[in-house]
Structures are given as structure tokens and as C-alpha cells.
């Protein structure tokens, strides 16, 4: 320590605290997977720093927001800072998800780290709140329409949906009050909650020590008659005896941070932060699509409609969030090794598969009303008008004909070969399959033409 360093240390008395922090022993078997938490923290810091910078030139009103974002992009380093904020936000959602997954698979949410999990799960929800409020702010088409859809999904929740919708929008319609509100939540409410929660989370991580990777057999042979606390302390002491100082682990954390920084800068300089056309409430050809991390939910609403929809929204938002936060009290027991928790692992696999699958389907799905099946030579007038019905009443959003159209329903390229006309008629008017909406509203003429067309496909 140099003279200046000593001057400060004599006044702040920091070096003993610092030494006990970096020199404390951590379990020896922690490795690259344990860097996910510090990577998440790093991305949060990047978000805070760039976010503060962006507020210096941003105006949260519908008349100015879009223009102020254009202005940011035109100022020196403005596009870079906005690009970093945009891309590290996406990475943050990804990394906090991976970190959560890692902790659950490692069984690190079990005694004595239950509270650390609960706080971490709340942080996950706060990050999603940041994401949802953040992408309205540029007031471009994507921002506007994703918020229309997002607030309506919340508004479809049972009982409290109406109040939630009005509360989120700051009024019944989406406009100036909504933008001011989302800005306030994004800039003040969520960061304040974030700082408190991160503080408690990190405090708990340091006080409890980093959880050792789960072992098939404990290092110390279990002794009957010990309390849970005593048994845990003996085992963790043994982990630390064979462990390493914390600064060893910091090397990996540092390497991950540098890699992330390079990735973020590459994305911010290369593709940069996207900005679509200015929000236009009167656009009729715009296809709303949420950011990738909400695509799974958006896609889920394809499969549950009508009366089921409020139920699914209730299950996903309320029940799933509650179970997620309370995981340590649902998934109980002392065994931490994943192979000793086969049920929990199968369930985790199913959830991951579901989220990835729905996201993929949502990202690749063809929007309805955009695809048109072309007419082919030799079609009769009835078949042509049946094709018109097919193209204009939303059939193409789920059904494919000769490679064009959606994937949710069966491919109809050979409909006339596979099914009888009567069966097709029944499936259209009174479908047995829940995913298929009833088209009982079609006029008789339309229905006949449609059948004429479909049965001609062989």
C-alpha cells in the first residue's frame, strides 16, 4: 500500500474488512457454474450505469419520447450506451435464469440458504418487471404494441384484472399517463427494490458462504444425534478446510465479466439497439411481437382461449410465481445431489423444455393474416371462393397448405385425400380438438365453398 493508500486506510480502517472478505475460505469444488451469480451482478451494474446515463437525454412523454431516443442515438456515444443497455438487458434475463437454474439443480436453495433463494426469486421477478417497463420507453411500434398486449394479458387475470390493467396504464387507455408511470416504475420503484433485495441477497451469500457443489456422500461421516445445524456446520467446515481463498474464485468471475463485456460491446456496436418506426396507434398492418423473453407466454395464449384464458393467466402469473418464490418450502429435504432428487430434476427438465419450446414456436410462428395460399390453375369458382375464405378467416395461422401457413394445426395439403367432407365439416363447425376454434359463424355458402376447396386437395 502506498502513502496515499495508508492515509485513507488509517482514516477508514478498511483493510482488515477487505482482507477478511477476500481471504475467507470457500469450498474447493466451486467452479465455472458458480460464476453465473457474479455475471448477473455484473450485468445489473452495467444496466444501472448505462440506465442513469440514458435518463440524462430521455423525455418520458408520448410527444417527445421517440424523438429523444433518436436524439440519444445521434449524440456521440449515445447509440453505444443505448446499445449496451439494450443488449445487457437481454443477457441479464438470460443469466438470472441460468443462475436460478444452476442453484436449483445444485440444491443450493436448501438449508440454510432458503431465504437467499426467496430474495433471489423476488429479484428474478423484479428483473422481468424492468424488462416489461423498459421496452415501452422508446415509444416505437414494438414498444407500443407489446405494451398494449402485455397490459391486456394482465387485465385478463380473474377478479383483479380490471384494476390491474387500469393501474398499470395509469388510466383506461394507453397514453401519456402510461408512459410516465412505466418510466417512474423503471427508474425509481424497481431500482429501489432492486438495491434493497440485492443487498440482502449478497449479505446472505457472504454470511452463509458459497454453497459447496453437492456431493454424493458427505465428506464427514454423519454422526447420529447431531442437530441439523451441527451436522451442517461440521460438513461445511470440512468443505472449507479443503477449500480455497475467495480471491481464487474471483479470477473466474473476472474472466466471465470480461467475456460478457466483449459480447455486449460487440452487439452494441454491431447490430446496436433496434428502433422501429414511431409508435402509431392507427397502424393496421403491424404484427405485434413481444421481446424474446415474453414470447413463451404470448405463444401459450394460442392454446388456451375463452374461459380457460383467465385461469391460465392466474396459474402462470400468480400460482407459478408464488411456487417459484417459495421453492425451498415446496422442495424440502436434505439431499442436494441432483441424482438423489429425480422428481425435481424431471420437473425442471419439463419446465425448461416448455419455456424453450414455446419461445421457439413463438419466434418462428407465422402471423395470421399475412400468409396467403396462392390459387392454382384449373380451380373452379367455388374452389376459388373457398380458398378466399381459407385465406381471410385465419385458417392459415394454424394450417399449412403446400408449405405455406402455420404449424399449430394439421397440414391440410392432402385434406381431401385424408378425410371425408362430412368429417371436415364437423371439425370446422363443432371441433373436437380444443385448439381448433369453432367456425360456426361462417355462412352456409362460405362453408360449402371452403369444403369444396379442401376436398379438392389431394
Amino acid at each position, binding site marked *: 500500500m502506498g502513502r496515499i493508500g495508508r492515509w485513507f486506510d488509517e482514516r477508514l480502517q478498511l483493510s482488515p474488512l477487505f482482507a477478511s472478505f477476500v481471504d475467507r475460505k470457500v469450498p474447493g469444488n466451486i467452479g465455472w457454474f458458480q460464476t453465473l451469480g457474479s455475471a448477473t451482478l455484473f450485468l445489473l451494474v452495467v444496466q444501472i450505469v448505462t440506465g442513469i446515463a440514458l435518463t440524462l437525454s430521455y423525455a418520458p412523454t408520448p410527444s417527445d419520447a421517440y424523438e429523444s431516443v433518436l436524439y440519444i442515438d445521434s449524440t456521440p456515444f449515445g447509440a453505444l450506451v443505448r446499445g449496451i443497455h439494450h443488449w445487457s438487458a437481454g443477457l441479464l434475463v438470460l443469466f438470472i435464469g441460468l443462475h436460478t437454474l444452476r442453484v436449483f439443480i445444485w440444491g443450493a436453495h436448501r438449508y440454510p440458504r432458503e431465504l437467499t433463494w426467496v430474495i433471489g426469486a423476488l429479484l428474478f421477478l423484479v428483473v422481468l418487471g424492468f424488462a416489461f417497463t423498459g421496452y415501452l420507453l422508446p415509444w416505437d411500434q414494438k414498444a407500443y404494441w407489446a405494451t398494449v398486449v402485455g397490459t*391486456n394479458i394482465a387485465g385478463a387475470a380473474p377478479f383483479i384484472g380490471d384494476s390491474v390493467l*387500469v393501474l398499470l396504464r395509469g388510466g383506461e387507455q394507453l397514453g401519456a399517463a402510461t408512459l410516465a408511470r412505466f418510466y417512474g416504475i423503471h427508474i425509481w420503484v424497481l431500482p429501489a427494490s432492486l438495491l434493497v433485495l440485492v443487498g440482502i441477497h449478497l449479505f446472505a451469500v457472504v454470511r452463509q458462504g458459497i454453497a459447496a457443489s453437492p456431493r454424493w456422500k458427505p465428506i464427514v461421516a454423519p454422526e447420529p444425534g447431531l442437530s441439523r445445524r451441527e451436522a451442517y456446520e461440521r460438513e461445511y467446515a470440512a468443505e472449507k478446510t479443503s477449500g480455497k481463498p475467495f480471491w481464487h474464485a474471483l479470477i473466474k468471475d473476472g474472466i466471465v465479466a470480461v467475456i460478457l463485456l466483449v459480447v455486449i460491446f460487440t452487439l452494441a456496436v454491431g447490430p446496436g439497439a433496434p428502433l422501429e418506426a414511431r409508435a402509431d396507434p392507427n397502424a393496421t398492418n403491424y404484427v405485434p411481437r413481444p421481446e424474446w423473453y415474453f414470447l413463451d407466454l404470448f405463444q401459450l395464449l394460442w392454446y388456451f382461449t375463452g374461459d380457460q384464458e383467465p385461469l391460465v393467466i392466474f396459474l402462470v402469473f400468480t400460482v407459478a410465481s408464488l411456487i417459484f418464490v417459495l421453492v425451498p418450502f415446496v422442495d424440502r429435504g436434505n439431499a442436494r445431489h441432483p441424482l438423489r432428487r429425480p422428481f425435481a430434476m424431471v420437473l425442471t427438465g419439463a419446465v425448461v423444455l416448455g419455456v424453450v419450446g414455446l419461445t421457439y414456436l413463438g419466434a418462428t410462428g407465422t402471423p395470421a393474416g399475412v400468409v396467403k395460399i396462392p390459387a392454382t390453375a384449373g380451380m373452379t369458382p367455388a374452389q376459388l371462393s373457398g380458398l378466399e375464405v381459407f385465406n381471410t378467416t385465419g385458417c392459415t395461422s394454424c394450417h399449412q397448405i403446400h408449405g405455406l401457413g402455420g404449424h399449430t394445426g394439421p397440414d391440410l395439403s392432402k385434406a381431401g385425400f385424408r378425410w371425408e367432407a362430412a368429417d371436415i365439416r364437423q371439425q370446422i363447425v363443432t371441433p373436437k380438438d380444443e385448439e381448433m376454434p369453432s367456425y360456426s359463424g361462417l355462412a352456409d355458402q362460405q362453408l360449402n365453398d371452403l369444403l369444396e376447396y379442401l376436398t379438392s386437395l389431394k
Partner: protein
Amino acid sequence: MSENNPGEPVAGVRDLSRRRFVLRSLAALGGTIAAALGLPVLAFGSAQGWQWKEDAPAELIETSVPPTLLSDAWTPVGSLLDFEVGVPKYVIVDRPVVDGWVRADAPIGVYVVRKSDTEAVVFDPHCTHLGCPLTATPGSNAFVCPCHGGSFDTDGDVTSGPPPHPMFRYEVRVDGGAIVIGELEAEA
């Protein structure tokens, strides 16, 4: 409780009981201050939610699914003869709207469907499911939603997909051949 360092006076029973009293009083005071500040702050921040709940007709929320800014003015959208019978046409008109603290004439888009020589219906152009913009495919007599495949016919009735209500309509008057729209009707 702190350990006794040599040289420091040992706290007596009286001191301990005073200490407890002072700390508890301070905690109570802190709680009171937090409530005095917190209640109005929370009430202000959530006012839209409960204020709306108090005086809202049950079906009003339905008109909140489309994000369209509301207006109670009567606005002409065109002459009846400018429209073909049964063919939806998209029209954007300026209407006086209130958007939070902003009072201005804003462009509002509507679908006009002429029904006969004396009648027309005017729809809000948003899906009643989640508020996505409806496309009227040229040459067809349907409105299709690009989000979850909902579709409506030219009466605004649902023909497929998840929309829970028919399309929202405007109050319509035909005044000397001109189609004039009023408020967005909550009852779809």
C-alpha cells in the same frame, strides 16, 4: 447485548430498562412516520386502480382492451356514398381526446362498413382479445388479427379464435349523407 470492555461502566438494571423503553419508543415512532408518509404515497400511486373501481360501470373495462384514446365528440368520418356496401374501409379522422394531462386533436383510425343506402357501422380497429391491430384483407369481408388468429366478419362478430367479444362499435348517426361517429360503445 454488548460485551463489557474493561474500563467501560457496566450497565445497571435501570439503564437496561430505559434502553429497552427508548429503543421501543423509537421503533414505534419510526413506524408512525413510515405510515404517515407511506399511506398517502401508496394511495396516490395506486389511485387509478381503486378510483376507477368505485365509479366504473361493469362493462366499461371492455373498451380498455383497445388502446384507442376516447372522445365524446361527434366527428364526421366521410360521406355514406364514398363507401361500397359491405366492404370495410379504413379511415383516420382527427378527434378531440384527453390523454392524461394532454388535451388535443389526435388522429383516430376506424373501420367503416356501409350497410345500405342509409346505414353504416363504424368499428374500432383493434382485436377484442388483446388489442392487436386488425387487418382487413383487401377483397375479403373479414378482419383478421395477427396475434392469435382471431377473426371477425363485417358485422364485427367473431368467426374464429380467442376474441371474447364482437368488435367494438362507435355510436353512429347519418346526417345528410355524412357518417358521424360518437362515443365508443362499451356494450359490444
